[in-house]
């Protein structure tokens, strides 16, 4: 696969130090994604059990219309889906980087960094949503 790639004059190679750093990225990325995925799934199960009642309480607590509970649940589910997709891309990136390192296949490493790029794009989306939420809260208060 690599033989088809154009080679630059100064061909770059991953030495031992770079490989150990890539291995560390893969190892910690996998730990973070799996741990947080388990926590998010547990929260989703808890939400499925008592979510609607909790949201009804929240809506009445904040003095909002009861019909807003459905909208709040929809936003919560969308956020959960976004977080799960974010973690799956981190897990995919970690696995592909590890596989690329073990097989010495730079195309697998490239796929790993492609997944990492999507992870960063989703991080950006979540930060933007947080900014929008904070600014809206500041304007309303």
């Amino acid at each position, binding site marked *: 696969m690599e033989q088809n790639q154009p080679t630059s004059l100064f061909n770059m190679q991953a030495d031992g130090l770079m490989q150990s750093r890539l291995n560390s990225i893969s190892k910690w990325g996998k730990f973070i994604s799996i741990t947080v995925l388990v926590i998010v799934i547990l929260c989703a199960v808890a939400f499925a059990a008592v979510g609607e009642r909790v949201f009804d309480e929240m809506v009445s607590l904040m003095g909002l219309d009861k019909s807003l509970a459905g909208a709040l649940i929809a936003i919560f589910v969308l956020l959960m889906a976004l977080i799960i997709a974010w973690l799956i891309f981190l897990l995919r990136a970690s696995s592909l980087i590890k596989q690329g390192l073990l097989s010495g296949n730079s195309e697998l490493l490239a796929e790993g960094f492609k997944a990492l790029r999507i992870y960063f794009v989703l991080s950006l989306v979540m930060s933007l949503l947080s*900014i929008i939420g904070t*600014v809206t809260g500041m304007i309303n208060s």
Partner: protein
Amino acid sequence: MDNLNINQSHDGLNFSENLKTQLNGAAVWGGIAAITALISAVLSMVSAFMKKNDPVTEYQLEGFGGATMKAGDGDSIFSVVISLIFSVLFFYFLNRFSTLTKTGLSGNNQEMVSNGLGNLSTYFIIIGVIIILILIIVLVVMAGLLAGAGS
């Protein structure tokens, strides 16, 4: 660090053009995400301080004997300051990853790319350690609550 059994030529794993392109893409988006996350953390801190200066909001809890819940007190300021400290740390390492990797790739400087990846590794290690600490705190609190309920 784990010992790796890697299939490669005697002088290292070659970087294909596709790998360089994808790594550069990750570095570019990592840099943008780092800046946005820092802006978000700063805004959250400003918002928390604004709420602190507001009169304390009290919500009436229906069906809970007329108890009240107070919002906008010192606890939220403390948590926002802690999260800002972590956000600055995350920004530093992610931004260093982005800058060093992009510069290293454009100049074919292997050491710079390696240092960039080292910063990304540190970024993930910090997040991992924070998760471990949070899990330990949650477990200790739960054990305390269970011990309290049992006695």
